[in-house]
């Protein structure tokens, strides 16, 4: 059962081949038996899941249930879930129980999906290896000595080990696409504003976007159909029409123009990854697409711009954790300032502290223009590169990550080496564009991903282009060997 995709599970549920309760129990048993190795879940919601599955089975019995009804999934522990702990991978929120559901969580509940549990992640989504989680690192099911990527490492590892058919995730600089690449999955980060951020704990508000980690592009389309909604409670959510993302999956891509940025094939790219991406380009040519070399001239500035903007926004967003209203509070504070300083000092880990300090510096008197304002100007140049490119191409293609999964501790004491892990993914967040990563080969027996970037709100086209690749290749069907 655990080999199935969402599309297959949905069909079998509708045809009564098995019940939601049966498949939910199957995944819960797998998690309990196997997740000791991977540490992909922080909280398992067994009772809730079985109650949701029972309700879904009643709905399925009427013969009029939506596609995701009864399908079990996992949620990244950054999404608030009423009555269930939401830790964001931090000691700060170790015992935090949100008084409400995030909009995307209620969207999935309304659609009848079952929540298996909450997945591990880098603390406050800050990291590219899942090593910053207060609840311990997550192991990559392809090689347990390697990282699964981050920050959505738990969501990626649980799907790669087939402990869940799919999971929600978030992407601020590559946190969906990079783990998808390192774990051999399909990852989708929609356009900024496509999916509500309400109830999703904020890291960098102008970059954060919720999306999915799945086995196939078809499953991403099914999940985005549920996840995307206009939400008045998120003032940056965009009120654009929401198409049926599954309706265009089978469109022909003959005559489609794919842009390949020359800047994405420079120094630092693993030759194995480069070869896999080049082979993918050939596959697209065979499918009738036209390939065009393009230039995104400001690419090299995306990581520097991001490491001003993201920390600046994080330092403001994380000021809400003050030890007063919720979250960790230190013992015996001497005075109010001591309460703030020690609660935050004890509650946050080193990477979160580093980013708060960098952000505070970039926003402080005398440095604002040189850092924050400058980075925002460069951000516009980076977006303009994409706007210009999309005048001539339909989709942009390149590698997702510079190399396959690396060993634990390999980039541990060098924050800049870790930041460069997102060198190809960060620009799409700065520009607000939708991006995907799909498996395109194995390098050193570990998966690598192909990144596809679409125009604003062109998720339908992006999913179509990804699905056509998956019809022509079988990289997305390769699975990590799980010691059953």
């Amino acid at each position, binding site marked *: 059962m655990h080999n199935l995709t969402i599309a297959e599970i949905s069909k079998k549920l509708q045809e009564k081949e098995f019940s939601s309760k049966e498949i939910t129990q199957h995944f819960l048993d797998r998690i309990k038996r196997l997740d000791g190795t991977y540490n992909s879940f922080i909280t398992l919601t067994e009772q809730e899941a079985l109650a949701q599955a029972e309700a879904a089975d009643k709905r399925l019995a009427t013969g009029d249930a939506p596609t995701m009804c009864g399908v079990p999934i996992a949620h990244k522990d950054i999404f608030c879930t009423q009555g269930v702990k939401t830790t964001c991978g931090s000691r700060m929120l170790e015992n*935090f129980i949100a*008084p409400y559901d995030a909009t995307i969580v209620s969207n999935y509940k309304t659609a009848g999906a079952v929540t298996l549990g909450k997945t591990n992640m880098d603390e406050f989504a800050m990291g590219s290896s899942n090593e910053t989680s207060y609840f311990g690192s997550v192991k990559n099911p392809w090689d347990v000595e390697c990282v699964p990527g981050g920050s959505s490492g738990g969501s990626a590892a649980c799907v790669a080990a087939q402990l869940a058919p799919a999971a929600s995730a978030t992407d601020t600089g590559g946190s969906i696409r990079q783990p998808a690449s390192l774990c051999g999955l399909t990852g989708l980060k929609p356009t*900024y*504003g496509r999916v509500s951020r309400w109830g999703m704990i904020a890291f960098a508000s*102008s970059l954060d976007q919720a999306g999915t980690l799945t086995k196939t592009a078809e499953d991403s389309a099914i999940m985005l159909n549920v996840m995307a909604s206009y939400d008045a409670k998120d*003032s*940056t959510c*965009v009120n654009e029409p929401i198409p049926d993302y599954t309706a265009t999956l089978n469109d022909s891509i003959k005559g489609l123009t794919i842009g390949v940025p020359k800047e994405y094939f420079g120094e630092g790219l693993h030759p194995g990854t480069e070869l896999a991406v080049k082979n993918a380009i050939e596959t697209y040519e065979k499918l009738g697409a036209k390939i065009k070399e393009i230039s995104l001239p400001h690419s*090299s*500035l995306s*990581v*520097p*711009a991001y*490491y*001003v903007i993201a920390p600046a926004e994080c330092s403001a967003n994380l*000021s809400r954790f*003050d*030890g*007063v*209203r*919720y*979250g960790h*509070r230190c013992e015996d504070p*001497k*005075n*109010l*300032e*001591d*309460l*703030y*300083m*020690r609660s*935050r*000092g004890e509650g946050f880990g080193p990477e979160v*502290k*580093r980013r*708060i*300090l*960098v952000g*505070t*510096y970039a926003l*402080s008197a005398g440095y604002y223009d040189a*850092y924050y*304002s*400058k*980075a*925002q*100007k*460069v*951000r*516009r*140049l980076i*977006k303009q590169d994409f706007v210009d490119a999309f005048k001539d191409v339909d989709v942009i293609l390149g590698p997702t990550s510079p190399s396959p999964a690396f060993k634990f501790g390999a980039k541990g004491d*060098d*924050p*800049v080496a870790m*930041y460069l892990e997102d060198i190809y993914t960060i620009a799409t967040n700065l520009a*607000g*564009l939708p991006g995907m990563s799909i498996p395109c080969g194995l390098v050193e027996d570990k998966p690598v991903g192909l990144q596809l970037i679409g125009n*604003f709100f062109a998720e339908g086209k992006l999913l179509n282009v990804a699905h056509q690749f998956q019809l022509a290749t079988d990289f997305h069907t390769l699975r990590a060997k799980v010691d059953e």
Partner: protein
Amino acid sequence: MEAKEIEKLAKLARLEITQETIDETAKSITEVLALVDQLQSADTGDIAPMAHPLDAVQVLRKDEVTESDTREQLQAIAPATEDGLYLVPKVID
């Protein structure tokens, strides 16, 4: 970045950095700032700063109460409350 500057930033951010970790913090932040300094090479002339990917403007709504009173639920997760108020150490002597 010197340890003294980290102390000042930590105070601005209301964030305790222990003495044992301060040198390491200073070193890593210096590395991050060296990365970020690459921005200075960009010619940004009269480019307007970009705060939002879609250049959206603030959404306005009617000034009406749309949410119910959830004080009890919200205070249930607070570290310390009394009579519906949040408790903090004494602020005024």
